[in-house]
């Protein structure tokens, strides 16, 4: 408003200035000057006319005063007119105007006087002749005087400059006579009035109103010229001002245009700002009483009221009831005090639903600085509030959980604890959480656990899961304890951290140890138990055999004189011994293999032979079908043992069928890869690769679950006539061959047994059945010194006898050291060493090594009652052969001969 008045004032002043300049610039129109000039001229002419008429009147050539009276009136009116014409000159022409006025005004009296006096002068003058004639008539003697008077009158009239009035008056004074009285009177009147007329005329002329008029006119001209100059100046000023004004207007227009542009931009911007605002926020505007005058769509949507419903209403309609009156009062006090109020409040929508808003309410001031409106911008934070509430609840829960959990939990970040729970505090025996937080993490790990610490740090940095680790930690006082910890990555205040769960496992460990001990004890007991069973079985079988042997031996002793009976009894002893050896072999096979002569074998022919062999024993009610693939790869296997496997399976299959039945025999290739099912008996895992499978299925009686579980247990059998070692031996063989076996069976349905052998790529020579060697055929070829080392004196004796019997020169030793001594003694002549593997002090392998160290080409045969583990060790040595105990004399001789033969070659 003040601005407006200022501009108005400036505008008015400018307008006035413009008008003033314009006025001033107008100058004096030439017409005006001419007019003044003409009036002045007119006045001068009038004056001159009047003067001329006065002259005429004096001369008697004009007889009435109308002209000079009118002229006089005209002079006056012209003077006024002239005055009016030059009125605008004002002060500038005051002297001239005053002069003119004075002269004109002053001329009035002389004119009147002139008229008055001239009338009287003329009358008296006219009367004089008559008067003088009358006097002359009455008094002729006075004629001379009269003539004199006449003469003087003539002089006066014709040569006024010559006339001496004073003399004449003196002369007149002499005329005393009463007759002269009228004459004197009239003469005096003539003189008097003549003077008056002359004076009046002179005065009139002297007043020179024509001059004053002209002077005025000239002064006016000058003045007007000045005015014109001034006017020019003003015109120039006007031009300048107009120019400035124009410039100003142009500038204003330009600015206007600019500001329009800016306004447009601003408006556009504001439009989008409002749009953006409307998109984002709830906006409402109220008047200064708090009644709503505008609300955006979001407001409607949130509150449920239409704009129409809200206009004119106060925000109170949204009161949720949760805030106190004081809260609203404070709000109002803040904004009505001219400040922005920020806060969170809960509002109630039309349908009664509550929502939270984060509000800003700002007062809007008008130009006078008074509050005109309030604008409130709110964002709906109901969700956030809910989330916050839930978060808080969650935090509380988390806290409760964290506090009550018996596990020690701690969050590690950059080597420091950022959070620990109560259990952690208790575990590490720190007095308070803060105390623990003050300590670095490493403080709680013992010196040796640097590896663990670095794992923890790594897991933290890389944000990876730390799997269960065991380690030794210590309390703040340094008390050590075993713990297991695992870690999970998490963000703690935006930065990577690791949540460690630490569990004191001292107890558990102790428990585990105890359990382990107990378990071991249990296993031991079980083993003892099974061993017991085994021993029992073996003892039983051996007892039977021994009984036969002992009995026959006793009988042999008794019938020593009867060679026929003696031979019979010794043969029976031999048979029983063989049986015992077979039993041992089977035991060994169950245990893990025994002597194995592994070579690449093509199984299909072998199977075919075995199948034929078995078929012969079957009844004609049982069919044996063969599905033998011819392209199976060879397997690295001991032929005899594989034969036994096949035989066992087929025999079992046959025995399971009562009456009619079918046995299917299948041989083929299969592949074990990484994700193959591996549920082999014994829970072993087969390596990936090609396998040859043998499958025997029958339609026999099948097995129930319990039976199936036990078939591989030694001495378990369902057969009346079986010992129960078959399947256990089979399992041993298979395991020794790195194969697998799986049994499928269902009661009354049948059984399917699948055996896998790892395939090899090597070519294989046709296996030849192991032929018993002919000892006698070799007798002539072999001889020499042989060293026998065995810690069993009986075996030593027996073996020495056998070899000596054949023709060898035998040296014996009963332990390793002795053996070496003997070797060293007979080093030159020894041809072969047979050494027992298991001996006290120095074992067979060590002896072999020693011997080979000195004489690498010396053939060394090792013998042992054990097998598989020994084989591993043996394979590294250059052993000429391996003899499994118990061995027949033939076996020994064969082995020795073969070894010698080999060396000879």
């Amino acid at each position, binding site marked *: 408003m003040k601005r407006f008045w200022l501009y108005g004032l400036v505008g008015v002043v400018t307008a006035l200035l413009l008008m003033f300049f314009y006025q001033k610039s107008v100058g004096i129109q030439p017409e005006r000057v001419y007019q003044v000039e003409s009036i002045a001229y007119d006045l001068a002419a009038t004056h001159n006319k009047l003067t001329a008429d006065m002259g005429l009147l004096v001369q008697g050539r004009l007889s009435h005063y109308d002209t000079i009276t009118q002229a006089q009136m005209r002079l006056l009116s012209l003077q006024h007119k002239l005055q009016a014409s030059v009125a605008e000159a004002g002060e500038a022409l005051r002297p001239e105007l005053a002069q003119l006025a004075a002269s004109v005004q002053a001329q009035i009296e002389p004119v009147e006087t002139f008229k008055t006096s001239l009338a*009287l002068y003329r009358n008296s003058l006219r009367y004089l002749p008559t008067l003088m004639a009358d006097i002359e008539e009455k008094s002729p003697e006075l004629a001379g005087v009269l003539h004199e008077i006449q003469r003087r009158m003539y002089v006066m009239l014709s040569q006024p400059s010559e006339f001496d009035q004073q003399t004449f008056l003196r002369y007149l004074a002499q005329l005393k006579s009463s007759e002269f009285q009228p004459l004197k009177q009239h003469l005096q009147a003539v003189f008097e009035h003549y003077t008056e007329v002359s004076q009046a005329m002179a005065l009139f002329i002297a007043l020179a109103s024509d001059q004053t008029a002209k002077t005025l006119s000239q002064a006016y001209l000058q003045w007007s010229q000045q005015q014109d100059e001034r006017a020019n100046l003003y015109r120039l000023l006007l031009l300048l001002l107009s120019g400035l004004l124009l410039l100003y207007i142009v500038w204003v227009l330009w600015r206007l245009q600019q500001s329009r542009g800016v306004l447009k931009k601003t408006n556009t911007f504001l439009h989008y700002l409002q749009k953006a605002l409307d998109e984002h926020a709830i906006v409402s505007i109220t008047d200064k009483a708090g009644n709503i005058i505008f609300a955006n769509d979001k407001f409607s949507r949130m509150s449920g009221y239409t704009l129409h419903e809200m206009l004119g209403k106060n925000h109170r309609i949204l009161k949720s009831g949760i805030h106190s009156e004081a809260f609203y009062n404070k709000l109002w006090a803040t904004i009505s005090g001219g400040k922005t109020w920020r806060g969170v409040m809960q509002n109630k929508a039309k349908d009664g639903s509550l929502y939270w808003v984060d509000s800003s309410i700002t007062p809007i001031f008008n130009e006078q600085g008074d509050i005109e409106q309030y604008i409130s911008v709110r964002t709906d934070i109901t969700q956030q509030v809910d989330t916050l509430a839930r978060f808080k609840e969650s935090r509380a829960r988390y806290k409760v959980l964290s506090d009550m959990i018996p596990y020690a939990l701690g969050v590690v970040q950059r080597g420091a604890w950022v959070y620990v729970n109560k259990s952690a505090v208790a575990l590490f025996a720190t007095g308070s959480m803060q105390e623990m937080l003050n300590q670095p993490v490493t403080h709680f790990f013992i010196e040796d656990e640097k590896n663990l610490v670095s794992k923890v740090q790594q897991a933290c940095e890389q944000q990876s899961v730390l799997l269960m680790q065991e380690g030794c930690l210590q309390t703040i006082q340094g008390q050590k304890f075993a713990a297991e910890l695992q870690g999970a990555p998490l963000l703690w205040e935006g930065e990577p951290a690791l949540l460690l769960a630490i569990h004191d496992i001292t107890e558990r460990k102790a428990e585990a140890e105890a359990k382990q001990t107990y378990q071991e004890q249990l296993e031991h007991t079980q083993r003892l138990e099974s061993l017991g069973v085994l021993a029992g079985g073996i003892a039983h079988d051996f007892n039977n055999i021994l009984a036969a042997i002992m009995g026959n031996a006793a009988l042999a002793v008794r019938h020593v004189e009867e060679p026929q009976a003696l031979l019979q009894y010794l043969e029976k002893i031999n048979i029983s011994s063989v049986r015992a050896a077979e039993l041992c072999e089977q035991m060994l096979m169950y245990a893990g293999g025994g002597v194995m002569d592994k070579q690449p074998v093509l199984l299909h022919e072998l199977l075919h032979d075995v199948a034929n062999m078995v078929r012969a024993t079957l009844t004609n009610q049982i069919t044996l079908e063969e599905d033998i693939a011819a392209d199976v790869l060879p397997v690295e296997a001991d032929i005899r043992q594989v034969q036994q496997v096949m035989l066992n399976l087929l025999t079992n299959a046959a025995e399971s069928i009562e009456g009619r039945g079918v046995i299917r025999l299948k041989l083929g290739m299969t592949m074990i890869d990484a994700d193959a099912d591996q549920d082999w008996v014994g829970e072993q895992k087969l390596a990936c690769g090609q396998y040859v499978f043998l499958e025997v299925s029958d339609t026999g009686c099948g097995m129930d679950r319990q039976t199936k579980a036990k078939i591989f247990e030694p001495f378990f059998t369902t057969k009346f006539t079986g010992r129960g070692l078959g399947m256990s031996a089979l399992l041993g063989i298979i395991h020794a061959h790195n194969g697998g076996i799986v049994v499928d069976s269902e009661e009354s349905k049948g059984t399917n047994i699948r055996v896998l052998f790892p395939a090899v790529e090597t070519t294989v020579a046709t296996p030849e059945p192991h032929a018993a060697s002919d000892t006698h055929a070799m007798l002539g070829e072999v001889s020499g010194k042989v060293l026998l080392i065995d810690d069993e004196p009986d075996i030593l004796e027996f073996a020495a006898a056998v070899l000596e019997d054949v023709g060898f020169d035998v040296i014996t030793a009963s332990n390793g050291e002795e053996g070496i001594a003997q070797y060293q003694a007979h080093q030159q002549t020894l041809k072969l060493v047979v050494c027992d593997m298991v001996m006290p002090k120095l074992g067979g392998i060590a002896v072999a090594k020693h011997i080979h160290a000195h004489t690498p080409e010396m053939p060394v045969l090792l013998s042992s009652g054990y097998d598989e583990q020994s084989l591993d060790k043996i394979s590294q040595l250059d052993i000429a052969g391996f003899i499994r105990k118990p061995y027949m004399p033939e076996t020994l001789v064969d082995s020795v001969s073969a070894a010698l033969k080999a060396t000879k070659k």
Partner: protein
Amino acid sequence: MRMVCLCFLLLAMPSLAFSNEPIVPIVAPTGLNQAKVSLGERLFFETQLSADGNISCASCHDLELGGMDGLRFPIGVYGKVGDMNTPTVFNAALNFKQFWDGRADSLEAQMDGPILRGREMGNTWKQVVSFLRDDPVYHELFQTIYNTAITPEHVRDAMAEFERSLTLEGSRFDQYLQGKLQAISAEEKAGYKLFKSYGCVACHQGAGVGGNMFQKLGVMKAYFTQEKGIEPHDLGRFNVTQNPKDKFVFKVPSLRMVVLTAPYFHDGSVATLFEAIKLMGRHQLGREIPDDDVKLIEVFLHTLPGLYQDKAW
């Protein structure tokens, strides 16, 4: 040839002879606004312009009686008697000033006198104007002419315009001056000659036969004496100028309507024209005019009044 010249001369003589006459024919003012004239006439006769509603301008300046009332002193409102003889309204436009003492410079200025003077119309302009405004006819008339509210200036203007129309042309003497030698008789001519020779024309000259100058009454012989008693109005121009020289100085009255405007002189103290002439000669000319000459002059004076409404008096 000589005859022709003589005849020409004779013919030209009157004009030549009249080329320097002290009296000139009246030329009435031209270009008068007829509407104003008729309004002025209405106003001239409007008695409501006076305080008591009885006196109009025409009451004293009776147009039927030669422009004045024929009384020594006029009678104003409430029967009040004036103190100066009413001059004629006819040819008043020719007077260079109005009133005996010449205090009004114009016809317009003269109007204040009678309207405001207590003895005459005794009114105020306010009342005059309000009367005129309230009167629908006058309102209409004024509105038509002046188009604004009625002011005293308008009243003066209208009335003056009317008075100007009372300038009477066509007198027999004017006709004579204009060449109609037979317009006046020989007696009248003789009277004119005497009027000139005696010197009456010294002051009573011009178109109005006077009315264009001031002159002292009693130049040759004092008119006002202590014995007779000197009234204030006798002081004449002195009352206006306060100049001792102007004592007993009056405006020379126009003689055009003199034969109709008895009684004579400023105070109407001279009943007859004969006597007025005699006194004039004695006091102004310092001569005793013989009766016969006075009669002749009187006869001459009868030729002066112009025609009013084309009617001779």
